[in-house]
């Protein structure tokens, strides 16, 4: 039976970009406000879950040709590597630093090394959550 779900498709094509924008906003507001890598990764994976719900697994796999287990592995390596980077400066493991730099367009900007660590966390969360959802939702 052919099921007509054009409303869900039309809503999803717009809502996915809103969800991705919110995920990026939450990821970058993580230093002083609610947010961070874990929450941003969860919202990002919820966008992927919405795509998997609306379309099927094959379509999304051809549209986003990444292996999510590899994404989780790369994220874990990034998080541990940025933690190890502080050892080269004689600081304890996972020490973070920040500084204020004058950028051309943005002006005075705070750049922190914790953003790299948070990007690793976000990749881990996206990979693990999407892998779990696909493993559970896969019917026999």
């Amino acid at each position, binding site marked *: 039976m*052919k*099921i007509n779900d054009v409303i*869900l498709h039309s809503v999803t094509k717009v*809502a996915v970009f809103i*969800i991705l924008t*919110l995920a990026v906003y*939450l990821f970058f*507001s993580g230093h002083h*406000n*609610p*947010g961070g890598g874990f*929450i941003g990764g969860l*919202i990002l994976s*919820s966008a992927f*879950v*919405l795509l*998997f*719900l*609306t*379309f*099927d*697994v*094959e*379509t999304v796999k051809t549209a986003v040709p990444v292996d999510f287990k590899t994404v989780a592995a790369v994220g874990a390596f990034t998080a541990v590597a940025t933690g190890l980077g502080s050892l080269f400066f004689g600081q304890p493991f996972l020490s973070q630093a920040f500084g204020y730099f004058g950028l051309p367009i943005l002006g005075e900007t705070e750049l922190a090394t914790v953003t790299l660590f948070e990007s690793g966390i976000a990749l881990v969360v996206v990979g693990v959550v999407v892998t779990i*959802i*696909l493993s559970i*939702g*896969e*019917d026999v």
Partner: protein
Amino acid sequence: MITFMLVASLILFGVAVGIALYRIIAGPTLPDRITAMDFIGVNLISVIGVISVLFNTLAFLEAILVMAILLFISTVAFARYIERGVIIERKRDR
């Protein structure tokens, strides 16, 4: 005065959530329970909005967005489960 109105609205939202909770527990069919769950989620979003007005802060607005997104996705998933019996399909038939 405005504080009294906000607190009264919070109490009424609590009563509405209680009524919806009765519908979830005693609901005869699955769509009744899903609609009641959606109703509770919308009421929670409204409660967060009222509380952020009451406390005069902007810190809760991300929680509203996140809860709205999760509510939308969960409602879509339940509707998909009722309609087809399978939530994530391997391959669409078209």
